[in-house]
């Protein structure tokens, strides 16, 4: 799994790519919670995620809950089909705010 963190004011953007599994998800969790510690609203781009298991989903849930407690926005953007299938299985596709693309979310922001 690869992680890229970008500044997209007012957001922090975490891009996850590759397999998000029990081996790699602790790094995803660390990146997500690290951005939230900076009190920035967070977008997580899942467009290049090829595989996600329940530990990857757990990292997203923890991020969502942490953001909510802090009154910060947390949303997923461009969710790859492989990740969307798992979110649907966990019935989280209706819980997380999900945007079709980063551009779409940024345009709404303007």
């Amino acid at each position, binding site marked *: 799994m690869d992680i890229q963190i970008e500044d997209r004011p007012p957001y922090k953007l975490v891009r996850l790519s590759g*397999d998000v*599994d*029990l*081996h790699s998800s602790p790094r995803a969790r660390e990146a997500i919670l690290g951005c939230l510690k900076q009190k920035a609203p967070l977008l997580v781009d899942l467009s290049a995620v090829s*595989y996600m*298991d*329940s*530990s990857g*989903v*757990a*990292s997203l*849930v*923890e991020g969502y*809950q942490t953001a909510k407690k802090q009154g910060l926005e947390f949303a997923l953007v461009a969710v790859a089909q*492989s990740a969307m*299938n*798992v979110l649907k*299985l*966990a*019935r989280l596709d209706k*819980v997380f705010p999900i945007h079709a693309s980063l551009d779409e979310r940024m345009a709404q922001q303007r």
Partner: protein
Amino acid sequence: METLLDQTFPASTEVLSEVRLAVRDACQHVCRGDKSGEECGEQMVLAINEACMNIIQHGYGFADGQQFTLRLGVDDGVLKALLLDNGLPASDGDLRPRELDELRPGGLGVHFMRELMDGVAYVQAPEGFANCLQLSKRI
């Protein structure tokens, strides 16, 4: 039963990608070559991955030097996976899914296995193993 895979892996998170690759490859030989066959294979991959996670995480508590065996076969149109380990004793009581209405990280693995498979149960472990989890799915 036609054996598709019989392999022992180190009980380490690093090996999960290797397990998925092996299961995906084995399923390609028996699942239909269309979209539904591909979905069936991916569901088997996800369920087996979750079962392996449970062994590594809960059965062995991430301890070094442990291993588990995965046997995958097809019998009369049913894909069957056996996961064999020597971790903490496990039983069907450990296979109760949690309520999804409760939003919290973790505890989704059993739900995934139950949703994706037609059967999830602990069966009599063969000699040399403490636990044997059987996952089955009609193809």
